[in-house]
């Protein structure tokens, strides 16, 4: 019983939690090898065979989904196509500079279709736009956190100057003492690193 108690107490130590968690997860991933896994081929937003469009020398490979600019929509198989009235239009749209690039070289399909219009825009902005809101919010929040820490703490240059002044003063004052101390002290500091 006391052993269990000790174990339970050890589990309450924050340092051990990530390790415990990763162990549990790793063990569970091994279970995944026993589970029958197969891809259901009836997916939404399917795409053609890899390299098929390149072999056909389509200048828009690998994101060519048909359609004509501002006229006919491209082919998109969405979950609820009734919720998105103009589905496929974005995929079929190309900005003027994209048309220019298309006429220059047949090997720039990716960049053509990641400029406004194109498949990813269709999915990211139109049919699943809410996901992208969240995604960019996550990025923004992490930047808020990081930049707040940077500005107020880890990179506070004003404080750095103040501190360096202080430490210089202290240094001049205690130059003798610090000379004596530094030997002991720095060795103790660096011992941990080795």
């Amino acid at each position, binding site marked *: 019983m006391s052993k269990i108690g000790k174990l339970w107490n050890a589990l309450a130590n924050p340092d051990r939690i990530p390790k415990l968690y990763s162990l549990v997860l790793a063990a569970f991933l091994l279970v995944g090898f026993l589970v029958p896994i197969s891809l259901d081929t009836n997916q939404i937003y399917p*795409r053609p065979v*890899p*390299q098929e469009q390149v072999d056909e020398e389509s200048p828009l490979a*690998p*994101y060519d989904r048909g359609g004509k600019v501002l006229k006919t929509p491209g082919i998109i198989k969405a979950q609820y196509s009734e919720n998105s009235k103009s589905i496929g239009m974005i995929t079929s749209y190309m900005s003027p500079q994209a048309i220019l690039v298309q006429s220059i070289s047949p090997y720039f399909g*990716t960049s053509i*279709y*990641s400029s406004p219009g194109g498949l*990813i825009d269709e999915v990211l902005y139109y049919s699943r736009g809410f996901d992208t809101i969240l995604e960019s919010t996550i990025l923004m929040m992490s930047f808020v956190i990081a930049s707040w820490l940077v500005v107020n703490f*880890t990179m506070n240059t004003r404080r750095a100057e103040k501190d360096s002044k202080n430490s210089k003063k202290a240094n001049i004052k205690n130059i003798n003492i610090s000379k004596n101390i530094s030997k002991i002290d720095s060795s103790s*500091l*660096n011992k*941990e*690193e080795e």
Partner: protein
Amino acid sequence: MFFYTGCILAILGSIATVVGPGVKDPIVRTFNTEVAAIGLSLIFLVYNHTLALMTFIAATAVTTLILLRVITRLEEIGADA
């Protein structure tokens, strides 16, 4: 073909990251994750996820930057973390 090369690279890279030679040095470890990243890039390429691949390349560069910053910073302040 490239798919399996990608798999090999990813597995090799991750093994090396965990128990490779000299991984006590965090910089070495960061380098080794790069191998796995290239393996992943290959897989993206095979699936024709080229946009994701482009973003991944950019994001990897930034992630590496951040990691290296942490490493140097910690080394600088002599932290034992």
